[in-house]
């Protein structure tokens, strides 16, 4: 029988623990496909960050290091500096990358650290049960903003790609999502490019994936996709915010 579909080699056989409708599974697959297509699994080292995706160390077939909360890009820096021939990536959520790890993120980016960063933005802390994230939307109800995020007291959401795109060390800053086939294909291309940039020694590449958290949003999977489209995407516009490989004037997607 002809095999028409199989899991990427860069994913192990360990079943995902992710909730139904969570987009971590899609993004894991895209990362693994990119690793397979580029033939880099043997020299890839991933950094799992604190949050739902911490168990990604069980799911990716390459060597993995688990990082303290927020420190993934510092850990990745250590790995990359010690083993420059390795292809080093982090896989981080919004709390990890844009709250507790903002300092590590900004400085890895401005150093032009030659690493690949996969950033899952689902506007909530998933693993701890749905607290306000740095990327939670104004008015968004979470466990710690039960009356909705009041920007007067809880401040505004942070747009990481826009901010990082101002830094000279950044090679690629792109925001994608995986709500439909077209967007999944675009996300795949962005993730692959983020790895190619590292192979080519171009510096820091970040792909932000606007994602869902049906469980903590309190929505059914299909409704969560709709909520993402109606609420997340207007605040977090998809696009290429910086791409040093793009020709002049052709950067914005």
């Amino acid at each position, binding site marked *: 029988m002809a095999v028409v579909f199989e899991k990427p080699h860069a994913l192990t056989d360990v079943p995902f623990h992710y909730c139904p409708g969570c987009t971590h599974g899609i993004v894991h697959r895209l990362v693994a496909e990119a690793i397979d297509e580029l033939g880099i699994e*043997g020299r890839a080292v991933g*950094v799992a960050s604190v949050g739902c995706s911490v168990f990604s160390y069980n799911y990716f077939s390459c060597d993995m290091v688990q990082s303290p909360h927020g420190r993934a890009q510092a850990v990745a820096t250590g790995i990359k500096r010690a083993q420059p021939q390795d292809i080093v990536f982090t896989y981080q959520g919004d709390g990890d990358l844009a709250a507790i790890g903002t300092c590590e993120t900004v400085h890895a980016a401005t150093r032009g650290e030659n690493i690949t960063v996969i950033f899952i933005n689902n506007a909530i802390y998933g693993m701890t049960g749905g607290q306000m994230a740095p990327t939670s939307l104004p008015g968004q109800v979470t466990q710690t903003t039960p009356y909705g995020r009041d920007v007067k007291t809880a401040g505004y959401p942070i747009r990481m790609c826009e901010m990082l795109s101002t830094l000279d060390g950044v090679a690629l800053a792109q925001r994608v999502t995986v709500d439909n086939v077209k967007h999944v294909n675009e996300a795949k291309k962005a993730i692959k490019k983020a790895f190619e940039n590292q192979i080519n020694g171009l510096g820091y590449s970040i792909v932000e994936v606007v994602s869902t958290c049906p469980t903590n949003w309190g929505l059914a999977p299909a409704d969560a996709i709709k909520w993402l489209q109606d609420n997340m995407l207007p605040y977090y516009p998809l696009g290429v915010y910086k791409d040093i490989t793009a020709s002049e004037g052709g950067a914005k997607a």
Partner: protein
Amino acid sequence: MAEKVLMKGNEALGEAALRAGCRHFFGYPITPQTELSAYLSKKMPKCGGTFLQAESELAAINMVLGAGATGVRAMTSSSSPGISLKSEGISYIAGSDVPCVIINVQRGGPGLGSIQPSQADYWQATKATGHGDFQIFVLAPSTVQEMADFVALAFDTAEKYRVPAMILSDGMMGQMMEPVSFPEETEITQHDKSWAACGHNNARPHNIVNSLYIEAKDLEKTVIERYERYEKIKANEQRAESYMTEDAEVVIVAYGASSRVSRSAVDMARAEGIKAGLVRPITLWPFPVDAIEKTVANAKQFLAVEMSMGQMVDDVKLVVNGRKPVSFFGRTGGIIPTPAEVLGEIKKLAGKEA
């Protein structure tokens, strides 16, 4: 041994790190460890190594975690307030069984404290370097020569037992100059690195360097295995120097800078006919229980001398276990006690008023 050169303690640490095969240093500026970072920033690029000034101590220690996780010899250095920031990373490094070396050139505390020499981080180094059940190997040099000698020992012990190692120095040891010699060649023992996450090269299953165990029984098993290693360290790696302890009736226990002062006080006491002696812990963890135990039978009094309000004295009391009186003398806040002050304490204990 090559000829002696005059060096600051901090510089000796840097040179010794290079000779011990360390090619990855991640630092963040803080007084009084400054010369170590400055030295390595000059030397590392010349030998193809990494000198990286991180954005914070948090980042620096986690860079050590990343580099160490791939199996290389990685080091960071700081001083007291910076070590507090590194404590999170040290706990993860210990929980991930990653070898590395951390330098603490202590200054006064708590808080921003002072920039003068101190030994007030003894508890932090030996009891609570971070959260959770773990220990780290801790060496306390008392000369610039020992600053140099202990770096290779720290790396070797860290790799042998897969634990973080710390050199607990202080601002006096770091800043002062003494003649120091380096061996022509530092022997670097090759330890098993099959656990390292450095790319599996499609030749083995993936390695995971990790400190998370979601099942309580798995974490307990892992911690118990680690404590079995700690027992081996306690059995094999205790180090201490005993000075005039054979017939000592007043036994001083002091390490690092305060041991130098105490040694002078012992000489002064002996000149006055008092049978004083000194046990100088070289390893603070494991605490040199055996060296102190040997002195208990003959001793009438123990005196812990520290540049703190009294921290190591607790460990001395645990060894002596009520068999003999244990007293404490210390100065803190960045003050170094004088030999005359320590002699005064010895005289009081020997029944001769100062």
